[in-house]
């Protein structure tokens, strides 16, 4: 067996870093919803894909710059998140039941996407897709770099908001002990609506990043569920920085497995890491 070249290893690691950033970005909203609201929101993936299709539509047909579509998509996704939390709160669902309910919603959104855009492949053609920089022997694609920057920026922004703002402190208090937090005057319902809206907005941003780098087809949303769930569990439920770190660890590990061994071994990595973590720290997830 010959060892891969340094360029191959470095380029693969870079690729893993970028995909890991996207795992982290997808997992950020999911993890916050799961950890702080106790809602395992599978519709997060559907919302991200809906946002990706909206970006495709606005940019391809409407002629907007893909990044400008965020001005419309983010508020829409925020509203979707608020509406979803309002709906779920009417039923007082357990986390497991929220998983089932949002799975149903995911199927409905998928059918809606298919009804509007058909099941065929849709590719957002933008100048950003071909834009890249060469650093030595390595190639750095612009769209993926933007995704990674968004993931890092948003993760730290959410971390700062959770740590240094009254809203963040209130949300953490509610997650810790809702009755006591309420006794101190925190409006649990209003805060949950805001947080769910933020998670929706994060899904919207992830969706735009998806549209920049990936060809879209409605059923593709299911391909992300396993690895993003592993990312969230590995990173810690409700943690703002955990999913980013876990996503990068998984992405780079998968990429290096592909470079050194075989791409067919790569999917095993994320779940092996997850199982190892659960064995080492059973209370983590």
């Amino acid at each position, binding site marked *: 067996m010959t060892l*891969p*070249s340094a*360029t*191959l290893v470095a*380029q*693969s690691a*870079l*690729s*893993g870093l*970028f*995909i890991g950033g996207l795992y982290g970005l997808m997992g950020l909203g999911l993890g916050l919803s799961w950890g702080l609201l106790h809602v395992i929101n599978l519709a997060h993936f559907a919302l991200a894909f809906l946002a990706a299709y909206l970006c495709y539509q606005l940019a391809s047909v409407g002629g907007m710059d893909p990044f400008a579509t965020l001005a419309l998509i983010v508020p829409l996704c925020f509203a979707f998140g608020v509406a979803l939390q309002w709906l779920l709160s009417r039923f007082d669902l357990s986390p497991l039941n929220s998983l089932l309910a949002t799975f149903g919603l995911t199927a409905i959104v*998928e*059918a809606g996407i*298919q009804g509007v*855009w*058909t*099941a*065929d*492949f*849709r*590719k957002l053609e933008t100048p950003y*897709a*071909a834009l*890249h920089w*060469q650093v030595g022997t390595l*190639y750095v*694609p612009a769209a*993926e770099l933007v995704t990674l920057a968004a993931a890092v920026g948003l993760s730290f922004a959410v971390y700062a908001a959770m740590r240094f703002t009254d809203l963040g402190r209130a949300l953490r208090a509610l997650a810790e002990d809702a009755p006591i937090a309420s006794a101190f005057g925190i409006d649990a319902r209003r805060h949950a609506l805001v947080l769910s809206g933020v998670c929706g907005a994060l899904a919207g941003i992830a969706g735009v990043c998806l549209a920049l780098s*990936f*060809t879209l*087809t*409605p*059923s*593709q949303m299911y*391909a*992300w569920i396993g*690895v993003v769930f592993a990312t969230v569990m590995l990173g810690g439920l409700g943690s703002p920085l955990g999913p980013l770190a876990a996503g990068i660890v998984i*992405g780079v590990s*998968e*990429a*290096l497995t*592909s*470079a050194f061994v*075989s*791409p*067919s071994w*790569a*999917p095993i990595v994320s779940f092996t890491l997850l199982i190892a973590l659960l064995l080492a720290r059973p209370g983590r997830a």
Partner: protein
Amino acid sequence: MSLVHRVARGVAALVIFVAAGAFAQGQPPIRIGSTLALTGPLAATSLVHKVVGEIYVEQLNRRGGLLGRPVEWIVRDDQSKPDLARTLYEQLITVDKVDLLMGPYATGAILSAMGVAQRYNKVLVHHTFGIPAQAKYDMQFPAWSLGPTPEVSVPNTVFDALAASPAPPKTIAVVTSKFPSVHFMSLGARDVAKKRGLNEVLFLEWDFGNLDYGPIAARIKDANPDFLWVGAIGLEGNQLLEAMSKIGYTPKEHFYMYPAPGPMSKSALARNALSMTVFEEHPPFTSAPGAKEFIELYHARAAKAGIPDTAVEVQAAASYTAWQILEAGVRGAGSLDDKAIGAWLHTHPVDTIQGKLRFDGPHNYGDDLMRVKQVQDGHWVTVYPAAYAAPGATLRVQ
């Protein structure tokens, strides 16, 4: 004969014709049942089969239907799930009591439907079954003219085309999805390449549904083969091309097993990409009876259905072929009896838009009619063998 007699005979003929038509209209329809993956990961391609089926049934009814009866097509959504396809075919036979079956899309669902058809002794004509050795039922009839051993014949056709090109490759990389009907072809390509003296510089496999093609692209770039065989299905080929482009690599000569035809031909990155075909929109394929009318109808209907690429190529042609086989079988047998239809098809070749198909070989497969096509100027054109090449088209190399 006097003018009065001639008029009288003409009126009588007209009355008989109208009465026969009215009788046919009064007959209960012949019901043909099938499933298609109208939702799920295979839905994009299944939509092609749905449009083609609707076109064919309309054409058939305009021609007077089958055996003097109109034809009705009942299609259920198997959601891209072979297990659901099995259940739905059971229902079509036992609850809906359809007269005939048409196959689903794709290999997994066809295999499921085949088991049900065998249990009820029904003829199953199918569009795109990719692993002939697994088609063990005597009354299944393939429209996908791969021949009985495509894992040998298809790579040989590709390597013959390359050997005849101005720059025959000396090294090869085989990278492949583990999607079943693709994977076995890629393993076959490895064996054939070895026998033909090509030096394999890379072999990689990935799981269907892979999200990150960056490391695969990096390994291909590192190996830098003369010829890249990509065992890809659907969008995998495009994803790999995009990943290679992002690291500044363009493959020298490259082949894709079952690409998403529209997205690949429209991609600037797919310049000179090769694949296989049984039909393209150029002579000599368009000279087949009915081909031109079908192409015109398909363009309009596919556009109406929201299919981005409205060209008739492999999938649409295979689908149309399947309906031609079923119609020929029923007309040839003169009955809806499955055993009679099966017996007729075993002994009679059928003229289709992809050529003459016979069902007397191993697993009811006849000749391998796969040709080599290439993306040239944003379109797929057949380039090999010369007898099937588009006018003026030859295999281009980078």
